[in-house]
């Protein structure tokens, strides 16, 4: 068994893709634990653990965003944000954040937001006289709004792994997402005053009504998704198909959709789904070993024995997930840690929806935290800025996000009030 950590580190250092790293380590663990005969269930395990209805919302929401961005909605969202907050000091910073709020309604991923917006915002902010690292940092930090405001790929993943209602999670993400946007805007306003950032001039700000009309279809998408769920037209998974349908219609409103565009969107969706499914497949092998060896039970007993209960256990989890978020991709951390830590939290009476919001927010903070701040990496790659200097500029944003995270953990009501109003049963 002592060989396993050694092999793990070797695979890690050589840059092995996580799915194959985890799959190989899990299979070697079976051999070392003298449970080799159980390897015969591998094909069934891989199939069965992917064959989960709730996961279907993942490819369908990815497809929605792929169609919408290919149809060119991004520019209309930026113009609309400009028309609202462009005139203030630090205006482009506010626009950057507000665009991410709008973009969050069509995309379930922070990386997608960073990738779609950094090439537009960072050069434009630099041209208007912003510090380039500040421009990169605010782009990366605000992209975290993407997976908090519905739809959200990681919440679908969380719902699929824990059985929590995805519709309730979506509803629960609205307030924290808006709070995050407000907190970042307040910070931006303060920084604008300290750093004497430029403000928009009336000449460069587009007028409100025409830009609202251009942006309306994209802004309507989250309304359509949540509306179809709350009015009971569709289940959460089916809501993702309705989102695709809406994107196809809205796409006609923008540049129109060519066959080529559709094929590319479908192909990108399949490939992205593949990167996550192969991880799910590999982790499922480890999960089976954990079940056979009773690891989750052992961990539960340990947690009990040191008296971590209720809120204290929740804060313990916040710590674990924060560290995990700094080193791992969000879906990777979710698939790895949820089966291990979440059952005890639920057994102790933590509401699964509240927990989902806290943990997803938690992991997202890791997206702009070194060493592996995935959003910082993407912005750095697309703009040619130095990663570490940008990470330094992101520190105030990280601080604000941490404060909000603690508030979300401490006051469940921030997450649960909206789902309760929408008629979901939560604690």
């Amino acid at each position: 068994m002592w060989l396993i950590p050694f092999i793990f580190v070797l695979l890690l250092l050589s840059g092995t893709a996580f799915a194959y790293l985890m799959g190989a380590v899990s299979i070697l663990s079976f051999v070392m634990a003298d449970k080799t005969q159980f390897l015969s269930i591998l094909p069934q395990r891989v199939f069965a653990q992917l064959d989960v209805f709730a996961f279907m919302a993942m490819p369908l929401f990815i497809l929605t965003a792929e169609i919408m961005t290919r149809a060119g909605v991004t520019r209309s969202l930026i113009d609309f944000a400009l028309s609202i907050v462009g005139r203030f000091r630090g205006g482009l910073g506010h626009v950057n954040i507000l665009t991410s709020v709008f973009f969050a309604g069509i995309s379930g991923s922070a990386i997608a937001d960073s990738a779609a917006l950094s090439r537009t915002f960072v050069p434009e902010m630099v041209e208007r006289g912003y510090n380039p690292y500040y421009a990169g940092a605010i782009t990366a930090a605000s992209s975290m709004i993407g997976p908090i405001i519905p739809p959200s790929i990681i919440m679908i993943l969380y719902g699929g792994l824990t059985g929590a209602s995805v519709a309730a999670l979506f509803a629960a993400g609205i307030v924290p997402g808006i709070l995050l946007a407000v907190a970042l805007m307040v910070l931006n306003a303060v920084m604008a005053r300290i750093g004497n950032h430029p403000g928009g001039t009336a000449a460069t700000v587009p007028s409100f009504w025409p830009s609202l009309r251009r942006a309306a279809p994209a802004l309507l998408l989250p309304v359509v998704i949540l509306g179809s769920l709350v009015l009971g037209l569709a289940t959460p998974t089916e809501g993702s198909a309705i989102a695709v349908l809406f994107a196809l219609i809205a796409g006609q409103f923008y540049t129109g959709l060519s066959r080529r565009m559709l094929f590319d969107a479908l192909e990108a969706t399949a490939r992205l789904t593949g990167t996550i499914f192969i991880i799910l497949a590999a982790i499922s092998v480890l999960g089976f070993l954990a079940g056979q060896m009773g690891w989750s039970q052992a961990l539960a007993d340990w947690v009990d024995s040191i008296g971590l209960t209720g809120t204290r256990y929740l804060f313990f989890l916040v710590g674990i997930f924060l560290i995990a978020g700094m080193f791992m991709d969000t879906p990777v951390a979710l698939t790895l840690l949820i089966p291990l830590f979440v059952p005890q939290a639920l057994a102790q009476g933590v509401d699964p929806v509240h927990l989902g919001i806290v943990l997803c927010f938690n992991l997202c903070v890791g997206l702009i935290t070194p060493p592996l701040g995935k959003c910082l990496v993407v912005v750095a790659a697309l703009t040619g800025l130095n990663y570490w200097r940008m990470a330094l500029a992101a520190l105030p944003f990280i601080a604000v996000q941490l404060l909000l995270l603690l508030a979300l953990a401490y006051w469940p009501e921030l997450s649960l009030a909206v789902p309760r109003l929408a008629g979901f049963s939560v604690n």
Partner: protein
Amino acid sequence: EVKIALDTAPDLATSGSYNWAAAFGAALTEAGFEVREMPRGSVGNEAEMFDQVTTGLLEISLSDIRSVAQVDPFIYGIRLPYLFDDAAHMQRALQEGGVFERVNAALGTQEALLLAVVPLGPSSGIITTDTAVRSPADMASLRMRALDDAQIAMYEAWGSSGTIVPWGEVPAGLQTGVIDGYLNSPFVPIMFGQTDFVRNFSDAGVIIPARAVLASRQWYEELSDDERAAVDAAVEAADAATAAWLAEVAETSLTALEEAGVTVQRLTDEERDAFRERSLAVYDSDLMPSDDVARWQDIAAASR
């Protein structure tokens, strides 16, 4: 080591299948076996539990009826509405009608063995969010969650309608109104914490919700004669224990629902007959081969 894969939380108060598993495990332990309960989900989902039984990696599994039906759909007969008067009648019919022999002949090719069919709880009633149901007419405007074609046909025969919603989306579906209800045992809304939004239960007594206890044939056949006799005795003990539990909870399950704030409609025999008569349409639909339906009706009649 005999691993028993559970299908519910280990709760003797609400789970018929856990009553079975606990009694079976206790009897085996007494006979000198080493027994280990595997918590729900720890060995995987239904498809995985079945696969592990057939490969000899799992000794005992509390599986769904579909696991058996994917090898021999004949077993679906126990889901015919109002086929059995009660759980005891169902057990007599399965024994006397040679159902175990027939199903096990088919399961044999898959190295699996059907040891028992276990009632999950008292017979299924109509579980709804807002509407109190006492007659088929009360369900006219409802959309019910259906398991399969046969249930959709039954709801239609009642003048209601059915739709397919996976179990994982049932809570959200009930809360948002995608569906208005489903059919199951009275303990199910309690077990799954749905009593906040499930407001009505009607004890229509449509079917006996059941689980299939599957054993690995390899394991069973490699037992010594004494050991096999001990296992067979443990099955009987577990069947008896579950029957005793069922008798005990027939009424208390309904009061438990009421304590959780759910309104319970206790139907009279005449009211239940209204559902029974309309349900007969399902027997004549061609969803199940008519020979099989006739066979089940004969089996049920002979053991009534």
